């Protein structure tokens, strides 16, 4: 559906996008991930024919962006970073205008307007001035205008930026629900968003392609096996953290134990299992048998953040090896330095 080959955009002094190549097949949701200024918007603007590439080619729905810009635009719905709303227009009037601009007319137009009003849940706002809508509603109207002509490809530039958490969730839901009918590229610098909404990620950094793969593959690639976070406590006095550490390491299938936090009455460990081993049951049993409290046990999925840091920034984090051997009683390796892994991103 989308083919990008050696796409490059150079400005007077900087190269915003540097020989990027990727393909997106029909019906996929692809996350376009990168820090601010990585070249996401520039790439999207080239795909939408807002401006032409300096070199390289890109085709959307079989049409070349340089030779057939009008056809490409006919097949693309685009939501720029700030929704392109005429604030003095009413919602429905605006949607009609965009529909006409994209070539709809007559009964067809009315049908599509009614459809997107319903789909994006903005029917209540249809006679309100766009300038009076809240940020969340504006974003939805922005999405509605992008899908009004039922395009094959949807390009969404940071569709959740500036929204509150509830609106973010609603917008993500909406995007996910659109996936069946459209091929979607959405850019973001928020990692959980990609994990939650996308099937595939394209990571770019400083204008260069850093990785392109499915979300699941990327996670698997970065870490081979299950990893869990444990919080253990003791109600009967000081908690022997070192003893607990050793005890956990002795469990069959555990390849690595890292002490994350320590307090007088307990500690938090990250326990990594060898590939293919399920250790959660054993962990729980050992802890309870030792007379401690198991306060928390949860899987620590490798966040894309870590993958992202590995791929784009800190090279130190790249070489955390995943232990392949599963010798149960072998002396455990010393805990390697951990890359900080913040969990929440606003």
């Amino acid at each position, binding site marked *: 559906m989308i083919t990008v080959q050696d796409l490059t955009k150079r400005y007077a002094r900087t190269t915003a996008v540097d020989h990027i190549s990727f393909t997106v097949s029909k019906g996929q949701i692809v996350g376009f991930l990168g820090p601010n200024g990585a070249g996401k918007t520039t790439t999207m603007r080239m795909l939408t024919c807002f401006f032409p590439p300096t070199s390289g080619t890109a085709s959307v729905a079989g049409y070349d962006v340089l030779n057939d810009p009008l056809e490409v635009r006919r097949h693309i719905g685009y939501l720029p970073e700030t929704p392109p709303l005429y604030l003095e227009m009413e919602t429905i009037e605006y949607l009609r205008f965009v529909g006409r*601009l994209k070539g709809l007319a007559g009964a067809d137009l009315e049908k599509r307007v009614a459809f997107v009003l319903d789909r994006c849940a903005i029917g209540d706002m249809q006679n309100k001035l766009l300038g009076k809508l809240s940020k969340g509603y504006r974003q939805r109207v922005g999405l509605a205008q992008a899908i009004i002509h039922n395009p094959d490809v949807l390009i969404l530039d940071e569709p959740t930026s500036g929204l509150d958490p509830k609106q973010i969730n609603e917008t993500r839901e909406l995007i996910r629900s659109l996936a069946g009918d459209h091929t979607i590229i959405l850019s973001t610098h928020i990692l959980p968003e990609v994990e939650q909404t996308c099937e595939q990620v394209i990571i770019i950094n400083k204008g260069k392609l850093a990785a392109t793969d499915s979300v699941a593959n990327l996670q698997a690639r970065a870490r081979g096996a299950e990893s869990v976070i444990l919080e253990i406590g003791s109600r009967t006095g000081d908690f022997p953290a070192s003893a607990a550490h050793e005890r956990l390491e002795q469990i069959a299938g555990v390849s690595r134990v890292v002490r994350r936090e320590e307090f007088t009455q307990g500690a938090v460990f990250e326990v990594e299992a060898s590939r293919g081993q399920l250790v959660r049951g054993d962990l729980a049993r050992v802890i309870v048998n030792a007379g401690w409290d198991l306060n928390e046990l949860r899987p620590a999925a490798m966040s894309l953040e870590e993958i992202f840091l590995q791929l784009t920034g800190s090279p130190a984090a790249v070489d955390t090896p995943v232990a392949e051997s599963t010798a149960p009683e072998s002396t455990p390796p010393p805990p390697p330095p951990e890359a900080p892994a913040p969990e929440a991103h606003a």
Partner: protein
Amino acid sequence: MRNIWIICRRELNSYFASPIAWLLLTMYSLIFGYFFWNLVGYFINNAMEMQMMGQNAPVNINEQIIRPLLANNAFLEILFIPLITMRLFAEEKRNGTIELLATSPVRDSEIILGKWLAALLLYCWLLLYTGLNFAFLFRYGHPDIKTMGVAYLGLVLQGAALLAVGTFLSTLTRNQIIAGVTTFAACLLLWVFSWVSSYNSATWATVLSYLSVLSHSESFGRGVLSLKDNVYYLSIIFLGLFLTTRSLESLRWRS
């Protein structure tokens, strides 16, 4: 053609939805009405004095009211044209709506023509209101309608030309005030270029004088329809709109 009309219609709606159109209309009618009232008062006073002195001097509504009035009006437009055009592209650039237009299946030329046409229609709408005043003259006198028609055609052409210049200048910035001020300066300079010819007969002065709106608006005011003046206005329109397309195109390559 369809796309031009779609864009033009939205643009017109937005002139009237935001109070810009109504405000311009009010102010324009107010100032024009004052001009009219003044000239008519002067005319009547003159005619009465003539009569009292027993003279039967020729009175001519066309020469004594309509022509000076429309000449004043031509200048008045220089103040109003920047107000009409300054938002055309500058506002789209600031609000980011230009991204919608530029990524829709429409040509740049259609966007530009649509916007310019909307500005021209609003301008004609203002002119239409000046016509209300003249209705009184037709009720109580016999002005020559053909002369007036040519004068109005001149005003429309002049407006279309200056609006094209304003449309171009509006693509250069995202700040409406800058667009407005530069348009005002351009219109004013185009207006007064002819001054040099009054004391200088060098070739460059003649050329500059030819470029001046003033040297072309006068003959229309007298009811003379000449090819030279039409060509002048049409070439300014073409040049303005052509520069606008180039400017939009360069925007795509640069930004």
